[in-house]
């Protein structure tokens, strides 16, 4: 018995063009990215300089780190609106503890707090059954509220100048935040590629019932995923502190939607079950270079959100429309 023989409704000649189309739609984003890069290099003054690239990388690394965690949650069929609040919390807590205790303790505490909020998210989503939108919206507001109370909404100063290495420093020509971003992306890739948890994330996102019936502990997978999402947001928060040197409770408000946008522009559907790290990385960089190019051309920064919005609609629209066509065929 052979599955190809069994599917008589799929005509043979279609297979090749189907493959071709699949290939195109898989690499569509990469192709767009390369073409845009070429166009910008040729036509945008000062774009094709290392200084500018380093600048783009430095500015977008933080969102990239958040996007890696967001990707995991999106693959399980959810997302996290609390990453901004967690990032702000992590940078404030780190700032306070650096001033009072020491840098290593501060970093570890900030990261653990991120994991904790992630676990809380996962608990309410998996065990209690509140949907991801409501759960993470609530924790986002909750964490922000706590932060304002504890700091009286005042920034936390006094972090030593040397800490800015983490946010502004470079190793050779490469910004340190970018190195951290690369490490986070690599870790996320390895998680999805090599670990049991990564495999289960795809299964849970693809078909929760099947996962449960196959004896997979779905709740644990979801909780672990949100914990990792919280961790990545906390890492981003520490890097943010390295850039500003001030623990600012009102910062990072735009992280959740920007990170979701990056992942989605990268071609990952919110319905879950599919998605690769390079999508999140490429999505982040795509939004980054577009903003940068607009900047260099001299377009008013007020236009940038509008352009980002249009990019999301076009990129995701093309993808979804293709999917819809394929399904109704």
């Amino acid at each position, binding site marked *: 018995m052979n*599955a190809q023989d069994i599917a008589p*409704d799929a005509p043979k000649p279609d297979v090749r063009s189907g493959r071709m189309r699949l290939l195109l739609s898989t690499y569509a984003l990469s192709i767009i990215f390369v073409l845009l890069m070429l166009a910008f290099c040729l036509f945008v003054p000062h774009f094709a300089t290392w200084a500018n690239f380093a600048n783009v990388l430095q500015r977008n690394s933080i969102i990239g780190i958040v996007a890696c965690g967001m990707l995991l949650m999106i693959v399980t069929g959810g997302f996290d609106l609390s990453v901004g609040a967690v990032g702000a919390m992590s940078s404030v807590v780190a700032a306070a503890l650096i001033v009072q205790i020491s840098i290593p303790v501060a970093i570890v505490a900030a990261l653990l707090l991120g994991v904790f909020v992630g676990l809380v998210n996962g608990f309410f989503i998996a065990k209690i059954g509140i949907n991801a939108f409501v759960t993470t919206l609530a924790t986002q507001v909750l964490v922000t509220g706590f932060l304002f109370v504890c700091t009286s909404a005042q920034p936390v100063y006094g972090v030593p100048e040397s800490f800015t290495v983490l946010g502004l420093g470079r190793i050779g020509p490469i910004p340190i935040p970018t190195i951290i971003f690369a490490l986070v992306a690599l870790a996320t890739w390895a998680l999805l590629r090599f670990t049991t948890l990564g495999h289960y994330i*795809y299964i849970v996102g*693809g078909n929760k019932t*099947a996962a449960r019936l*196959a*004896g997979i502990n779905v709740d644990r997978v979801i909780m672990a995923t949100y914990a990792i999402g919280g961790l990545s947001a906390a890492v981003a928060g520490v890097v943010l502190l390295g850039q500003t040197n001030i623990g600012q409770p009102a910062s990072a408000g735009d992280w959740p939607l920007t990170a979701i946008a990056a992942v989605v522009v990268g071609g990952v559907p919110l319905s879950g*079950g599919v998605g690769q790290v390079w999508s999140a990385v490429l999505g982040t960089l795509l939004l980054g270079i577009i903003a940068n190019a607009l900047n260099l051309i001299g377009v008013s920064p007020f236009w940038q959100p509008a352009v980002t919005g249009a990019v999301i609609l076009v990129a995701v629209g093309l993808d979804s429309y293709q999917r819809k066509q394929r399904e109704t065929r």
Partner: protein
Amino acid sequence: MLLEMRDIRKSFSGNLVLRGIDFGLQRGQIHALVGHNGAGKSTLMKTLSGNYADYQGQILIDGVECRLETPREALKRGIAIIYQDFSLVPDLSVADNIGLGREPKGATSWFLAHAELRARSAREAAALGIDLPMDEPVRRLGVAGQQLTEIVRACSQSVRILVMDEPTARLAPAEREHLFVTMRKMADNQGVGIVYISHFLEEVRQVADCVTILRDGRVVETGPSSRYRVDDLARLLVGSTDIATIGAARPATAVGAEVLALEGLSVAGRPGVDLTIAAGEIVGIAGLVGSGRTRLARAIIGDVPSRGVVRVDGRPLARRDPERVAKAGVVMVPEDRKISGLALSSSVEANVVASALGRLLSSFGFIRPGSRGKLASDMIRRFDIRPPDRTMTAGELSGGNAQKVLLARAVAARPKVMILDQPTAGVDVGAKAELHRQIERSADEGAGVLLISDDLDELLGLCSRIMIISAGKVKSVLPSAELTRAQLLSAIS
């Protein structure tokens, strides 16, 4: 005795589905479980595989009692099940799906041995003589390929009891034969006990050692399959359930002009269907699950793409989509009232008037005052919906009353043609009789009705003609007066 189930009872929201079932399975035995839809076969097997924590009764494995409350516990005891509705992960590869939930671990349990997983899955498929593209996502495999993936998965767990819920419904004859050989080998060589659920009675006689017949949540008979002929089984299956409200078949004379005509209507490359229905006529469609009945109905209203012509009142519908077709006067009552039928959190009133609202009750987009409540009250009275409270939410209704609301919604739109997909599935006898009366009344009022049903008595009692569908092809359209229950049953299987 490998497995013994004693006095198993299970109810869903107060509705007793299993009414004390005893079931036994020996090592190396293939034991068929037959019964109509709703007889409790699937529920019994889902209980065995740990889907319900709240069943009553005893389950003994090798004579030792155990409670099976999660799929994990059932798997641990070597109980594997192939579900009727696929439990595959569409975007994962065949190899990944075969190994689902028992992935080989690498250096530590944190890591996954991908290469080993793939190799093992390929080996397991080969051991069963099944050839599958291991790296392809199952989404792109086609139904039979997906079914085979499920079979390999279930067979390759260290399985002692294997449950197959209609595994052959979507397989071609050659594939079926192959599957039977595989089943026999597993039973004889490895001593696996196999529970085999099927609608195909001929197959049951061919492959099973022993057969248990279920009806209405009870065991009717158990015995060696060689003891029964196909029509014995058919008779036991149907029983003597009386539907007293249905008399003889409706006379085909009391019909008017043609309201619906299908000309070469073809879905997914299958042969075209020709059929005409006159005003006041009820035409039945008989066929097994997966035979393409529902797809045909959905094709008529334009919900799935199809080729061919659909005429309503003699006029062909140029472009078919559900909205246009509804405007032309064709309404459909879908099969699953919970999923595609009712807006469960809306009121009975909102549900009943939904199809009539746009065309009958409003002017320039505004609902005429009072008309909506009046229509809802009329329909509640006409259909005897209980409790007669139009503000109640549809989700709180019992199955029979929910089904009445669904039919009332269709009738309220004053359709020319009604397409009813299993309108009485899973409802009690009283509600069923009421639904039958209402279907006949709609026909008397001039609607043409296309009735899809698993209930052969219902088809024979209500319809003037019955179209028999098998594997997407129309076998014949016969006047129901010329058919007996047993003939119909053997025609569809």
